[in-house]
């Protein structure tokens, strides 16, 4: 099992947001987690990634059998976890190039691989940018500063392509995107699908799922996964709404 989450409980500002969440994910699978506002979708993504505002009060989360909850945020990234942000942060003054190179080399160092020099890095990043249809100027700009919503998400996709994580969690990465940007995100995900890599798509809408077909759909409701199934669940959500579906 690539990701094994068992009875996960967490609070933020003393309010319980995850109340016994269970999830099993095999390598190569794409899972969608859907749910209404306030169900705990973003909380789940944040807890897995190690955001410090959240306190884990019970349960376990293992990545390839290793306890994620015991690690610092950077160690989780080094272990192969990647969070695509709902709102990617702007970092004035830090160039995208420096950021990407530092990130890649931090992860390589943790894996015992030699660091890439400027030349090797440039070659690699050009290749990935070409794959995602991104322009060169992206590298020279400060991280996400002055980027449109779509550009920020594309930048997250570039980071994902470069860091080659084992588990990618996309936290409502489709919210507020126009159709072109949404397709670009979907293209990024599809290009990176492989038997070794898994995805968790946390989403409020079914739009993204029209372009990236999930293997399993989960419904997260009041801090728990209450239903799991295939694409047919999406149709039921449309028809019944979350409240009725959760009660059924």
């Amino acid at each position: 099992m690539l990701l094994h989450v068992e009875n996960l409980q967490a609070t933020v500002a003393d309010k319980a947001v995850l109340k016994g969440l269970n999830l099993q994910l095999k390598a190569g699978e794409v899972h969608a987690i859907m749910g209404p506002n306030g169900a705990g979708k973003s909380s789940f993504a944040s807890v897995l990634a190690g955001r410090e505002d959240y306190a884990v009060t019970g349960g376990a989360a293992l990545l390839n059998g290793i306890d994620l909850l015991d690690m610092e945020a950077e160690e989780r990234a080094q272990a192969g976890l990647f969070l695509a942000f709902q709102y990617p942060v702007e970092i004035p003054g830090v160039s995208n190039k420096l950021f990407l190179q530092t990130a890649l080399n931090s992860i390589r160092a943790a894996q015992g691989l030699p660091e890439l020099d400027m030349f090797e890095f440039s070659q690699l990043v050009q290749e990935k940018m070409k794959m995602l249809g991104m322009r060169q100027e992206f590298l020279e700009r400060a991280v996400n500063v002055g980027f449109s919503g779509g550009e920020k998400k594309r930048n997250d996709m570039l980071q994902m392509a470069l860091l080659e994580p084992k588990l990618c969690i996309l936290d409502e990465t489709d919210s507020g995107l126009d159709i072109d940007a949404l397709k670009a995100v979907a293209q990024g995900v599809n290009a990176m699908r492989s038997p070794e890599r898994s995805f968790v798509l946390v989403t409020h809408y079914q739009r993204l799922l029209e372009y990236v077909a999930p293997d399993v759909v989960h419904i997260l409701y009041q801090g728990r996964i209450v239903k799991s199934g295939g694409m047919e669940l999406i149709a039921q959500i449309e028809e019944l709404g979350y409240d009725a579906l959760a009660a059924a």
Partner: protein
Amino acid sequence: MTHSLLPNQVEQAQNRLHDLVDEWIQKQDDVELVQSHRLEALARFAVIDMPNARHEDWKYTRLVSLWKQDLVLPSLQGQQVPIDSALDWQIMGVVLSFVDGHFCADASTSLSALPDGLVVSALDYNVANHHDLDAIHCLAKASISAGYRLTIKANTALQQPIMINQVGVHQDALQSLQFQVVLEENASATVIEVQQGAVGGLILSQLTVSVAANGQCTHLLWQDVDASAHAFAWRDVTLARDARFMQRSLLVGGLVSRQQLTVNITGENAESNVATGVIALGKQIQDVRTHTRHACLNARSQQLHRFAIGGRANGVFHGDILVEKGADKTDANMATNNLLLSPTAQANSKPQLEIYADDVRCTHGVTSGTVDDAQIFYLRARGIPAEKAKLMISAAFVQAALDDVPVEALRLAWQQAIADKLQQALVA
């Protein structure tokens, strides 16, 4: 409190400094004009009020550590300059090096091989300052041991920068230098000032820059003296019609440093653009003071001051902008941003506007904050360790003020220096 001194101890320091400089002046064999200027300044120093915390200008910049220092005035000449190996200064243009206040020919460009249009001559003692002298400035004037007047002739565009390299080697040395840079009409030049070393010393520096019509001066300042030194500088700039002045400063050294800049805009359509990156760590006091005077139509002044402050350090900023009657269409902006790297770091910023013209656009703003947790998390979520993330963000904060330094070798050296300094702070 162990850090305070009794009033008579300040008085003793004043007497000691007076006697030290007096004795030194007696030993100099310079022309009478030079000697009389020194003695006149020393006479003022003898009776002037010493800086103290009760005075608004010195409230945050305490000089207790300076009064306790037992300074000397070394008379050594012709010492080797320990040139910073990070930079090959010689390729940078005209280099004038001074060790402990004395010109060092071995580490300087030959004065007989200067580029066309640059004239180096003796100081003109009739150039006045645009502000009242305080005690330390009187001391600086009394103890000037070397200095030059650099004239860039009309219509000369100096391609290579002029570098003034001020190094302190002798421990606890007082050194005082003065320079005058004169750009005639249509002339342009870049002047780099570097200050290094001076363990336990007092390093005093005066610079006047006068830019005639259509002239352009770029001033790049690197204050990187030893962490035990005291550094004070006064820089007076006068701009004529259509003149341009650009200053970029990286201020990282010293136990106490006060860098004061006066920009006098006396010609229409002139422009001053000043940006400062400051790092204050440990118990450092980094004090930046600017006085900008708009005296005529259509001129612009732009200022950005960025302080990264850690440890128990204090970042002090005072900036005043005076727009005189008739100086309409003035466009003056001043921004100060403080980044606090520790809970005990202090920022004291005081911007001031005084406007007597009607049709002007003047703004000032001060922000203070800590490194944004969301930014740190974003970097950590990409595998970058927390310390490194904080370093990248705080270095970028300072760097942003200095990104357009036009001398590439210096820009790169500064990038490295900023990262190295902040690294010390974050490891500590």
